């Protein structure tokens, strides 16, 4: 009898094509909406933290604890020593993709009679470009090569100094042994990131040049590590600590996963709360739609139930039939929704949504804000988990919707069932 019920249910739902199609469209659209919205929201949250992670925090950061403590003052002498050795140790840990050492120090900039204080950042140009596409932000001149006595400078800083591409800039600083040291650099490019902090104060130069200026040997202030699975940062950080334990100056190196970064650690839970709430509201609405539609399907056909009971079907069998029909519609609808929503979101993840069109380029120009470099295109963050959650949600709501009338029907006599369509 059970096998028959499945076949019968299937035939039942196709008897009224239009009704069935509408119902399962409702489920499909609902599931698609959930998939897309969750991906979109994840994308929004990612882009907010992305900039900070890529520019400043990395997935894991290696830093001298004293430097961290006094970070606002930027004390030159507290560094992570012996980068080669650190890099070798870190590369032995599985999952580490990129090792990005940085040096940051106050510097006096001189061009002719113009002097300004700036902040010089020594880094690995191709590496950083890989990571944040810094070269795309160079609006005049060209990007840096791996090594060479050249630098790129923020637009606003360049304006203050009255310098242009191909000009020479004298950089003077006090090294870590309190000697005054100067080097003349060639400005090869001017960049504009949209972040006023960067454009007003920063200049980038190759790491070896910075090390020469500070006379610090092969050391750096921070080493940003990027791993293939950011979620595992805490675990990987632990492995790195172990790997570094043999380093003679291990006490000078603190390993910090991004989750423990002060700023992010506060920002992320807050964003999750806000977006979580919004997502819940969306789920509520979608759930209501599915619920309503499914309910209608059953209620409309209550007289059929009466007929079935009159024909001799047992109460339990009728109950199962209702549930199975709901299951069919729910599962197919949800799967279709997943099949459509999934690939769409995955595709959008690759191509991104051009946010500027939505925010209005006109507004940006009016206030002369270049759009911050990593926020132009929003990439929804799709994952299999999202797909599965949405599908399961759709199916469960569909089933729950039908549960109430199905249970009620258990105790109804055929005549009652027959009549109830008119009433409700």
């Amino acid at each position: 009898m059970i096998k028959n019920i499945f076949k019968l249910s299937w035939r039942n739902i196709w008897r009224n094509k239009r009704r069935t199609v509408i119902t399962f469209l409702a489920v499909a659209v609902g599931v698609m909406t959930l998939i897309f919205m969750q991906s979109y929201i994840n994308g929004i949250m990612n882009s907010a933290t992305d900039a900070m992670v890529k520019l400043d925090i990395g997935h894991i950061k290696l830093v001298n604890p004293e430097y961290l403590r006094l970070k606002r003052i930027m004390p030159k002498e507290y560094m992570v020593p012996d980068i080669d050795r650190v890099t070798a140790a870190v590369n032995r840990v599985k999952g580490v993709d990129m090792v990005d050492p940085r040096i940051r120090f106050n510097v006096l900039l001189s061009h002719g009679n113009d002097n300004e204080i700036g902040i010089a950042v020594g880094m690995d140009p191709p590496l950083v470009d890989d990571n944040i596409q810094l070269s795309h932000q160079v609006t005049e001149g060209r990007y840096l090569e791996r090594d060479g006595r050249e630098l790129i400078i923020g637009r606003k800083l360049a304006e203050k100094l009255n310098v242009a591409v191909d000009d020479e800039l004298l950089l003077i600083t006090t090294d870590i042994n309190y000697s005054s040291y100067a080097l003349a650099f060639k400005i090869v490019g001017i960049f504009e990131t949209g972040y006023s902090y960067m454009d007003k104060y920063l200049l980038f130069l190759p790491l070896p040049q910075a090390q020469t200026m500070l006379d610090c040997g092969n050391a750096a202030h921070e080493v940003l590590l990027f791993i293939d699975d950011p979620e595992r940062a805490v675990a990987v950080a632990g492995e790195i600590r172990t790997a570094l334990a043999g380093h003679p100056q291990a006490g000078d190196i603190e390993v910090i996963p991004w989750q423990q970064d002060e700023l992010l650690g506060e920002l992320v839970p807050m964003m999750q709360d806000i977006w979580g709430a919004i997502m819940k509201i969306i789920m509520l609405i979608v759930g209501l739609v599915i619920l309503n539609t499914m309910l209608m399907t059953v209620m409309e056909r209550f007289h059929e139930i009466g007929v079935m009971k009159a024909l001799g079907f047992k109460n339990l069998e009728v109950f199962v039939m209702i549930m199975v029909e709901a299951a069919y519609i729910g599962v197919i609808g949800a799967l279709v929704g997943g099949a459509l929503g999934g690939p769409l979101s995955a595709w959008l993840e690759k191509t991104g949504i051009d946010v500027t069109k939505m925010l209005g380029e006109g507004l940006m120009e009016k206030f002369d804000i270049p759009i911050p470099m990593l926020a132009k295109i929003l990439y929804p963050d799709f994952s299999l988990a999202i797909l599965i959650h949405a599908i399961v949600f759709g199916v469960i709501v569909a089933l729950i919707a039908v549960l109430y009338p199905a249970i009620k029907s258990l105790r109804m006599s055929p005549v009652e069932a027959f009549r109830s369509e008119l009433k409700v």
Partner: protein
Amino acid sequence: MKRTILFTALLGLLWLFTGAQDTPGAEDILEKIDENMVFDTAYVEAEMRITIRNRLITKTFTSFSQGNEKSFLEFLSPARDRGTKILKIEEIVQIYYPSAERILRLSGHLLRQSMMGSDFSYEDMTERSKKLREEYRAEVKGREEIDGRPCWVMELVSRLPKQTYFTRKVWVDSERYLGLREELYAKSGKLLKVMTVDEIKTTRNRFYPVKVTLEDKLRENSRTEMIITRIDFDVPVPEGTFSERNLMRK
């Protein structure tokens, strides 16, 4: 008869009010200090010992000076500083950085930066005592003893509203006319720097400080000792010493 008595009395009063004869006016003291320090030219070899954050860094340099107007310094050690040269002509200071092969001209706030990491600022190095007499109002406040030497305590208050060291307190050795200790204050009264002369050498009837310690009170636990290892007065200065060309010489 009455007239004579009155006149004598007036004279006496005048004498009383102009103060005791053995304390000279502040202006005079400053002049005498100048006289002590005057020379046509000088050649100096010196060592700067900088104690900062529990580290001791030693630098050596040579210098040629022409009076108080021109001087040329060249650093010999440590290696990173070797070849760094400073040319001062009147108020203008220029630094040559051998690593960059470029000259930086210092002015304004840059002059108040620490020179080569020491407690001395470039401004401190360019001080001329004539400036002291022009820009400060001097007053003798009393007498004290420093290390057994009798001193006049002088207070100099700036005539100009914008002066890095608004008030200066100087202990001048009353026999040798040499400042033994100097305290430099900001306008608010905050003590900014303290200079003490630790060793004095006698040359040709002049008294010259050969070891001076300066503490920048805005830097915690920091002290610079300037030790002159050799000083020759009125030596012939090679032609072209005080020039940009000399700065850039390898």
